[in-house]
């Protein structure tokens, strides 16, 4: 390829690059700069300072919100992986090939309903007079309806519901990548079915687990809706805190600093898991 044809590549790629720079890179730079300003009364003091970061490092409320977020997300990752793995395994290996796409489609069906509405659906399902409580009381399992909605339990449940879908897909993908004769080869060498699973299947499906867990982490930690609707806004998580700064207190600089903290956390998690973060088949 000669150079005069190579510039064509830049012409084609150019628009996407410009859009990314303008709609993403520039705003992010602005966020960084804004985090170095300070809110004073009704206006913004543009003298650069690290006050907001100091505040984040010392403020107990902010620490609590961070901790809450990490706990909720960790619980979500744990539960969704624990449910999704056997589920994906069953679809990948215990169901005839021709039915698998349909089952996967069924798995992600809720994805096609509106996120806001879905969260609201969970609220109703978990409410004191909702489906679950009414059914359990009718069957005599409960004497009185349980307070399930507007709690951390509800938030984690709703999150898990969503992320089971995500993780099922990623785990299924990596399970299907495993060469099909590895199992018979291991059995030929004396492995029991359990050993085949522990020594061959599980290790080779880890990338799918990691990708699913990573996506869950990134999406959940920045999610405002589910904790707000299903959790009733009763627990202060990072997104709630950030929005609070913006809408109630008008403290954009502090909000910007929080946004950066969020990004750093995600970047750290990415760095820790990047080795496994691929669904490509290992040759």
């Amino acid at each position: 390829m000669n150079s005069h044809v190579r510039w064509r590549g830049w012409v084609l790629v150019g628009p996407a690059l410009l859009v990314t720079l303008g709609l993403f890179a520039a705003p992010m730079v602005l966020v960084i700069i804004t985090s170095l300003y300070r809110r004073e009364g009704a206006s913004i003091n543009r003298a650069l300072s690290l006050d907001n970061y100091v505040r984040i490092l010392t403020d107990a409320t902010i620490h609590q919100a961070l901790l809450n977020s990490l706990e909720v997300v960790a619980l979500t990752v744990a539960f969704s992986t624990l449910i999704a793995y056997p589920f994906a395994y069953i679809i990948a290996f215990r169901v005839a090939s021709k039915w698998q796409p349909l089952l996967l489609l069924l798995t992600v069906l809720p994805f096609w309903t509106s996120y806001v509405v879905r969260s609201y659906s969970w609220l109703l399902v978990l409410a004191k007079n909702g489906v679950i409580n009414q059914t359990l009381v009718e069957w005599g399992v409960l004497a009185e309806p349980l307070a399930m909605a507007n709690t951390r339990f509800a938030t984690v449940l709703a999150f898990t519901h969503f992320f089971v879908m995500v993780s099922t897909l990623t785990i299924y993908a990596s399970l299907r990548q495993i060469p099909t004769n590895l199992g018979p080869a291991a059995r030929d060498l004396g492995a029991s079915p359990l050993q085949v699973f522990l020594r061959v299947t599980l290790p080779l499906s880890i990338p799918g687990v990691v990708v699913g867990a990573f996506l869950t982490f990134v999406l959940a930690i920045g999610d405002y809706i589910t904790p707000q609707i299903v959790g009733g806004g009763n627990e202060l998580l990072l997104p709630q805190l950030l929005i609070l700064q913006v809408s109630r207190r008008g403290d954009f600089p502090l909000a910007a600093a929080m946004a950066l903290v969020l990004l750093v956390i995600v970047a750290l998690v990415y760095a820790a898991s990047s080795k496994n973060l691929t669904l490509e088949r290992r040759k």
Partner: protein
Amino acid sequence: MKVFNAGIAWAFGLVVYGFILLPVISLVVFSFQATALPVPPFTGPSLRWYEELFADSGMIEALANSLVVGTISGVASTGLGFLAAYGLARHRPRGAKIVRAVIMTPLGVSYLVIGFGLSITANELALGKSLVLVTLGHIIINLPLAFAIILSQMREEDESLERAARDLGAGELTVIARIVIPVVLPGILAAFLLSFTLSWDEFIIAFFLADFDVTLPIEIWSQLRTGLDAKTNAAGTLVFAISLVALTLAYILSRTTQRRSKGS
């Protein structure tokens, strides 16, 4: 691989499907509720709430807005993504790796932060909030996905088809229109469908960037604050139905294009 027996597998599978589909079923069933509250007992079937939905001008406007924003941002992200993928796959400019990394970066950033970033940028530029900003916001979050999907469809083998076309005298635009696009069409459709769906359902960026003209998720959200009734169920079911139709359409379209290209 019999690690656990078929009975347990079936039971587990059914329980999980029940868990996954419970809110959807509840949503759809109670959209036909006759009384106000979408909780048991089921007093329907009744189309009362669908009537209320279509009579609610706020909702209908928001629905229309969502469709427009979704379509425009979908077309834009898919178009930009296609050009970038094609440029990268075939013309391989120097620094291709960096280009790819740059385009994909927004994927690693929470929508919360992207929306926030765009809102303070708009502020600095004294741009008022509007649906245009929302559309721009949706373009930037969908561009990486459209790019990645279409790029994955561009295989090296197909490059020889393009070379043959050029060899026979086709100009660049012809090659793109008659050779490249038809081959990666399933990817283009998938990218558009995904972009549309993600935009259609997206809340937080729209929340930061919209003014009085809102998208459907925001309208539902504000109505929720004032009171719960089955009209929201109707809205949700409608969204679901439209998404399903779009999905089925795209699937059928991709199958026919695949069949056509396989036949030739």
